[in-house]
């Protein structure tokens, strides 16, 4: 019986889709059967970030409206066995499905997958309502910035009001240099403000921008970011994993570089 997780944030552009793609990839690499559902109807991105945009024939709205079977709309990932995508429609908008329809769809998917991960759109309107309707638990993504944290707090309030009690925090794009100079909050600061439990910290890394542009998620590769995502996947599965010390890896080279700069 599958677990249904919604990845949400409130604020746009903080990394929901990137996180969804990488969690999916990571869990699949850990031999789970995963389906990623893009609920951002009209502004779909998950297919792009996974590099599967040229394979879309049917989408979520087709499945919900009965134009096709759900299995016909699923797209198998290029690289990972066990990873599937249910893309959103691009020519419709978020009023094309209702929360009840989402519940029915998700029930069907539960039978065949270990994890059903819903990529939620930004905002708190119909798209959000659709995405959380069938969720068992939520991952709230935020960057360590004031405006993002404010929106995350709103979202957490709404999740609690909709009886989603298992809510965990992912702090994305943590810039260690900025933190050191006192220009950015730490993950712990964010946790304090939002009063929910942390489940993952992903550092800012140019490699992520490259990976989303090329449609090749990097969870599970040997970069720090890749490891951070894998650790996050382990924690999603209930394991306890220590958080990476994001400063130390850079430390050695920074020190050498610093010597020369003086």
């Amino acid at each position: 019986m599958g677990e249904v997780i919604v990845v949400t944030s409130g604020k746009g552009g903080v990394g929901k889709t990137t996180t969804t793609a990488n969690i999916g990839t990571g869990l699949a690499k850990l031999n789970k059967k995963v389906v990623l559902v893009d609920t951002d109807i009209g502004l779909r991105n998950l297919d792009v970030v996974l590099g599967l945009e040229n394979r879309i024939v049917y989408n979520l709205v087709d499945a919900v409206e009965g134009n096709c079977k759900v299995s016909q709309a699923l797209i198998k990932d290029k690289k990972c066995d066990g990873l599937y995508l249910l893309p959103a429609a691009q020519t419709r908008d978020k009023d094309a499905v209702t929360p009840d329809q989402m519940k029915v769809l998700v029930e069907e998917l539960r039978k065949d997958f270990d994890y059903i991960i819903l990529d939620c759109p930004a905002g708190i309107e119909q798209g959000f309502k659709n995405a959380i309707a069938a969720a068992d638990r939520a991952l709230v993504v935020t960057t360590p910035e004031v405006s993002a944290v404010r929106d995350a707090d709103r979202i957490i309030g709404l999740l609690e009001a909709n009886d989603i009690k298992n809510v965990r925090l992912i702090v994305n794009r943590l810039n260690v240099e900025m933190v050191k100079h006192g220009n950015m909050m730490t993950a712990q600061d964010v946790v304090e403000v939002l009063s929910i439990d942390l489940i993952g910290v992903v550092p800012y890394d140019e490699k992520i921008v490259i990976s989303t542009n090329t449609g090749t998620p990097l969870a599970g590769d040997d970069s720090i970011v890749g490891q951070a995502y894998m650790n996050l996947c382990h924690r999603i599965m209930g394991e306890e994993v220590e958080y990476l010390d994001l400063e130390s890896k850079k430390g050695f080279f920074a020190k050498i570089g610093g010597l020369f700069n003086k």
Partner: protein
Amino acid sequence: MSQPVLIKGVKSGMVLRLDSEMYFDELLPLITEKFEASASFFGNVKVVLSIEGRKVSEEETSKILNIIRDKTRLRIVAVMTEDKDVEKTFDDKLHAISAVEDKELEKKAAKLEAENKKLLEELQELKGPINGRDAEIHIGSIRSGQSFETSKSLILLGDVKAGAEVTAGGSIFVMGSLLGNANAGAYGDRSAFVMALELDPLQIRIADSLAISEDQGPSRLKGRGLVRTKKKTEFGPEAAEITDGHILIKKYDRSFLENCKFLSQK
């Protein structure tokens, strides 16, 4: 015949002009229609009804009056017809009916006034100083976009996040961090205060006074925690209270409690 039934309002009454030739029974439905259509136009007024155009019998007049009573809110106090006898009959009847209706209306008015008075008294009670011991307890934090209101004092076991607001007729006690907006003394009690374990709000209102937090200047960006203007452990519990016309923040300790006006009220 242009219109078999015509209703005209004149200075002190109403004229009902009826066709002289048609059978009365044919006119009845038309009269009904006419009054139905214009009911809202006439409202609830006392009028003298003058029936013109033909002679009407007692029975026919009765029927007309019934229609008017059914379909409109008009109060016919007298009838004028071409037959003085008919007039006389209705004079007394209508007088009596009018008197009864007047009494009913007086009773209703008196009842409403009494209710009104009661509500005003309750409102006065609310506006006045709230018994400091009358408080509502809320368990849980208030998040951004949420709000909580009470007419009494409020004891909150949790935080008020930035973007959230709490309102109380009395004082507010936040057993946690106050990072959002708090409005104490919402009905005008200037002795009310706002207390928190960590008092770092965006805005505080007490009755009609408003205080806002410091703007975050460049020096504030140094150091961690941009969202906070002070660190939790630095200051301990504090309270905001109106002193000399301004909202001031004081340490929340025994001396505050002893000198506080709000709590010394009965």
